[in-house]
């Protein structure tokens, strides 16, 4: 049994039209650029996978990563908390033209919904967004005299995430704050595809330092010296 994939192209080859795709990262930190770009290239060559529903905290920046997916026309809907960035043109133009859908979710609720999806919790109550537009249409309940909004789990067909180390069994570590949503998304997707900067032998990660246990990981591809989205954008801007 091996979870190792020979290339980013192979790693993303099973993603199909209309799938829900969670993509790790907060801004540029943790964005799996090589996996995303392999997917964009596949779409440009074959017209598939299109009509994707993409889950990420943001909605792309500049013209790389998720923004490149949006420019390519393969994203039907974004589920995110903050569809703004230093250069949000890719999303903003399509959104204002009515060509892309937006589900706006408060950041903590987004994280918790993804965690719930991975943990088999179909619904939970949160104080967040009570009494606001974001809570419209959602059930409300009172506990101990305070009102809370019911939120549903969020699951995906696929998660694309970026790790620092991976072992053959799928155990992962992350680089600093590039961790963010990735450990959660890994739990909530039917198939979790990981690009890791380095693949080590089982035992190469201290069992106490594993952040994502291998049970949540399906495919791993080694991408040494991966591009960092923010660094890439600044390079382009120069």
């Amino acid at each position: 049994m091996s979870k190792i994939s020979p290339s980013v192209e192979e790693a993303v080859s099973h993603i199909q039209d209309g799938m829900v795709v969670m993509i790790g990262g907060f801004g540029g930190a943790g964005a799996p650029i090589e996996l995303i770009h392999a997917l964009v290239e596949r779409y440009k060559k074959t017209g598939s996978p299109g009509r994707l529903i993409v889950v990420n905290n943001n909605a792309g920046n500049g013209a790389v990563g998720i923004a490149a997916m949006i420019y390519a026309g393969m994203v039907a809907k974004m589920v995110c908390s903050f569809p703004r960035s230093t250069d949000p043109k890719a999303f903003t133009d399509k959104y204002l033209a009515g060509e892309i859908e937006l589900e706006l979710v408060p950041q903590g609720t987004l994280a918790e919904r993804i965690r719930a999806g991975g943990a088999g919790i179909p619904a939970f109550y949160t104080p967040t967004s009570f009494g606001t537009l974001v809570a419209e249409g959602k059930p409300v309940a009172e506990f101990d005299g305070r009102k809370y909004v019911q939120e549903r789990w969020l699951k995906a067909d696929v998660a694309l995430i970026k790790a620092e180390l991976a072992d053959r069994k799928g155990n992962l570590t992350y680089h600093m704050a590039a961790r963010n949503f990735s450990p959660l998304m890994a739990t909530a997707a039917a198939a979790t595809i990981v690009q890791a900067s380095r693949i080590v032998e089982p035992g190469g990660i201290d069992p106490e330092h594993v952040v994502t246990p291998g049970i949540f990981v399906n495919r791993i591809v080694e991408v040494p010296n991966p591009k960092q989205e923010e660094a890439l954008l600044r390079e382009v801007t120069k």
Partner: protein
Amino acid sequence: MTAKLTNAQIAWRAAQDIPDGAYVNLGIGFPEMVAKFKPKGREVIYHTENGILDFGEAPPAGQEDWDLINAGKKAVTLNPGAAFFHHADSFAMVRGGHLDVAILGAYEVAENGDLANWSTGPGSVPAVGGAMDLVHGAKRVCVITDHTTKDGRPKLLKQCRLPLTGVGCVTTVYTSLAVVDIVNARFVLREKLPSISLDELQALTEATLAVEGTVKDLIVPEV
């Protein structure tokens, strides 16, 4: 008395159906024996509720680290690639459907998949542990059990009489006499010991044993 499989043989049979690469939780006690019979060449990753993935066999006596135990509080070892995590993450693996197989013991199994394995009724101290979570988490929930109680009464029932562990959750039952799948709230007989007739087996089973296609011989080596 009909010839029947030993507990070790039941465990052996259940072990053969665990696929390569599977993530598996073995209940405390009898189910732990299944690990002994993993077919060679297959990689199985064991999960324990108290926060370890990929633990190995018990260490030699005297070499235990009692901070490295399984859900039955027995000392274990680690395989390369093991991971520790806290209890909420551990049960996220369970409840979230990430385990491929859970193997549990049973007092009673009903044809609709109901399981009773935690309480023999009022009078003693109730204790449920992780069983109620496991039965609603793993993709396959397998029971290993003697086909009947010690005094010969059926354990595969139309309805459970004891307090339930879970509703409609069991997928396969490996007994001392047969292998029975639960499909659409019916017992479907897959294998039986060649030495027992279908009528004899049915007589030891409260609910109807449906037959779909061929019933294979349940052949298990001496173990």
